[in-house]
């Protein structure tokens, strides 16, 4: 029981080399699936434990806090762990058939190994209580993500992966520089210890300039990683050309983990008063967030590759998360955190529907959707429901986070921001409608035939996610309570 935090990461981390050892595609898939399900069980147990008895600390190598590396699970990261493991546990069952079609047989064990390493990297970033350890796991997750994207069928996957590699490496280097400056200022890497030692630095005195610089590098680094407009340029290509499974997994997890890192450094290390009142992070983030919501949604309307359309929509949705953070209120922060969860559900479902279409049709251009409403009724129905959640229609999960976001903007009387949130939703209606119209109201092409509904292996995980979108739109208590609790803990400024 008391080793649970470390096994959260160890299951995928050591499951990965096992995947490679078995050397058979299906067998590696089994190992990976078991590891991801175990991970989900552990994250549920951790969440239960944290909500009942408070934060859990685990000293790796049994070295006490500032000298060794410590795992620290509190309200926020228990929640993010749950998001990541849930997506992983649904993506892997989905992966078997999709990967068999898209990845060559000899590369399949490598694919599952890299996927597990990516999962371990993301979990390691979230769970750790040590700033440098966070960076090391960031390297793990990024490196495996580049390779996974490069494994896409089309040759442009390689350029997309390379583009992401360059941008991602710059982001990671900036984060490393930021951590290095904080270390030279305090002599420690432990997050709680960093916070208490930074709090001791008087505002005007020695080290202040270094602190501002560290903050600047960290913010730019995280913004690159979370694809904040206009640093999102790597994202559309990466999501478009990656194998379907990789797009599902990364779109639902990777950017959320980057948002988590931003929250952790801003609130738990530098302190919300310093970051928001002196360095005005709220104002810095506000404009890019609003621009993301409007411009990325507009660009999405004009895309013909629907995967790329959804990728631009992701950039817009990330804008909602950072907008929530930039409002710097309890409701705003809570809306941002809640949207991490809800966006994982809706984008996971939408990209899974894309994978199902691509499984049967071969590509996901707008013209490929003609008549699919009749040919693949279950897949397209799932797409419609996921789309409704993306627009923020009541009774879906997407509505809840938009609702709290609007509430937060109205609390401080920002009518114009409220208007932009609503315009963003209307733009989402337009781009989702284009697909729906083509699928349901355009006749089938005469030559195309022989396509049928996607196999159950793809449909079941897809519909579980769609179900979650509906369930959490009606019974909102679990995610809302978790997000509200995490937001209060963050605003108290400590890792409570």
């Amino acid at each position: 029981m008391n080793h649970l935090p470390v096994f959260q990461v160890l299951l995928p981390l050591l499951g990965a080399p096992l995947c490679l050892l078995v050397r058979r595609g299906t067998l590696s898939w089994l190992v990976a699936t078991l590891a991801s399900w175990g991970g989900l069980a552990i994250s549920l147990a951790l969440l239960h434990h944290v909500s009942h008895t408070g934060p859990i600390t685990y000293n790796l190598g049994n070295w006490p806090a500032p000298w060794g590396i410590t795992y620290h699970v509190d309200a926020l990261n228990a929640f993010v762990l749950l998001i990541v493991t849930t997506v992983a546990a649904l993506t892997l069952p989905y992966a078997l058939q999709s990967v068999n079609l898209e990845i060559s047989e000899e590369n399949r064990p490598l694919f599952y190994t890299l996927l597990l390493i990516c999962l371990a990297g993301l979990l390691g970033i979230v769970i750790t209580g040590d700033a440098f350890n966070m960076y090391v796991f960031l390297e793990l997750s990024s490196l495996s993500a580049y390779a996974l994207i490069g494994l896409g069928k089309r040759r442009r996957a390689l350029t997309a992966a390379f583009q992401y590699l360059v941008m991602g490496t710059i982001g990671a280097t900036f984060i490393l520089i930021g951590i290095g400056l904080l270390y030279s200022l305090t002599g420690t890497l432990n997050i709680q210890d960093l916070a208490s030692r930074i709090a001791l630095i008087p505002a005007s005195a020695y080290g202040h300039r270094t602190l501002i610089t560290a903050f600047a590098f960290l913010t730019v680094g995280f913004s690159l990683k979370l694809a904040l407009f206009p640093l999102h340029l790597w994202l559309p290509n990466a999501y478009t050309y990656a194998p379907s499974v990789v797009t599902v997994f990364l779109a639902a997890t990777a950017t959320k983990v980057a948002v988590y890192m931003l929250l952790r450094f801003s609130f738990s290390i530098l302190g919300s008063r310093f970051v928001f009142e002196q360095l005005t992070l709220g104002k810095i983030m506000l404009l890019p967030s609003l621009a993301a919501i409007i411009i990325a949604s507009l660009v999405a309307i004009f895309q013909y590759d629907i995967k790329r359309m959804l990728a631009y929509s992701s950039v817009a949705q990330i804008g909602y998360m950072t907008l929530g953070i930039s409002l710097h209120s309890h409701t705003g922060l809570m809306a941002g955190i809640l949207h991490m969860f809800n966006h994982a559900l809706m984008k996971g479902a939408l990209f899974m529907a894309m994978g199902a279409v691509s499984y049967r049709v071969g590509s996901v251009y707008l013209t490929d959707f003609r008549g699919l409403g009749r040919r693949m009724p279950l897949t397209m129905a799932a797409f419609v429901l996921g789309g409704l959640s993306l627009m923020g229609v009541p009774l879906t999960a997407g509505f809840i986070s938009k609702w709290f976001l609007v509430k937060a903007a109205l609390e401080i009387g920002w009518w114009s921001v409220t208007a932009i949130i609503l315009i963003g939703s209307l733009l989402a209606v337009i781009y989702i409608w284009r697909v729906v119209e083509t699928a349901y109201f355009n006749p089938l092409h005469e030559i195309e035939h022989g396509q049928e509904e996607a196999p159950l292996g793809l449909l079941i995980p897809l519909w579980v996610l769609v179900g979650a979108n509906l369930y959490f739109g009606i019974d909102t208590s679990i995610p809302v309570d978790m997000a509200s609790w995490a937001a209060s803990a963050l605003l108290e400024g400590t890792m409570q």
Partner: protein
Amino acid sequence: MELFIDITLLTFLCITAMAITVIRKLFCAVMLASIFSLLCACLFVTMDAVDVAFTEAAVGSGISTVLMLAALNLTHSREKRPPHQPLVALLVVGVTGIVLMYGTMDLPVFGDAAAPIHHHVAPRYIEQSPLEVGPPNFVTSILASYRGYDTLAETIVIFTAGLSVIALLGIRDRYAGRPIPSDRSAMKDYVVLRIVAKMLMPFVFLFALYVQFHGDYGAGGGFQAGVIFASGVIIHSLTLGRDRTLKAFPHQFLRGLATVGVLIYGGTGLASILRGGNFLDYSVLAATQLKGQHLGIFLVELGVGLTVFSIMILMYYAFSYRREP
């Protein structure tokens, strides 16, 4: 005197960096990058960071140069002229540089004894590590024990890098099960090179073993040893023909070895849990704390060495035996 050395090295470093950005011949750029790493290694030595210097010299100017040359073999050796002057990039780099300078102005002077980094966690590492971990080289104690979990993750980073290269490039089993034809890449005609390389190889391997097992006392450890051992094998491949190397170290075997290395490291951690400690708490592995730490560090360094060695050669293979697209 030290100041003079530092200034000279840094000047050369700047010149090399600028030359790399300007030059269009990629072969020259690779060689300059190798020199850049060597200069960095020298700078690390003047900072008394010999372990880091060792790694930089072995990885930066050794293996990565070979890998880049192997990559050049697959592409062109001349960079295309970019269609426009990247002025925006220059601006971004310039601003970043200015911000960095601004940020470091307030930092304590290099070597300042009053700096915070010398007074918080460092004293325990320096004073207590011989008593609670053991190795006289406390860099090894930090790397393998205090922050051993980071090192496990770094080992897996290298593992991931190797797998990524294999997944994207692929390794051909060109001669699987067939007799090896005469290889044109072997330096048959260069008798002196071949003889000298053959004579050097045993010493390279011996030195790698020394670095592997002497890391507790001096600079070195699994990372450096793995790289040095791999460079020995690469010399073998360059002079005696890559197909003979492939026969001696088949790539499936190396893949297994890399995996075993990671599993040895992780398994050591799991063994600590089984014996009632936390993950990677080596103290519980043997009767006394120091013996346990010694055993644990030995095992994890072995794991690191195996993984780094196999991954370096696998990357080299991936570039030289690229699967036909």
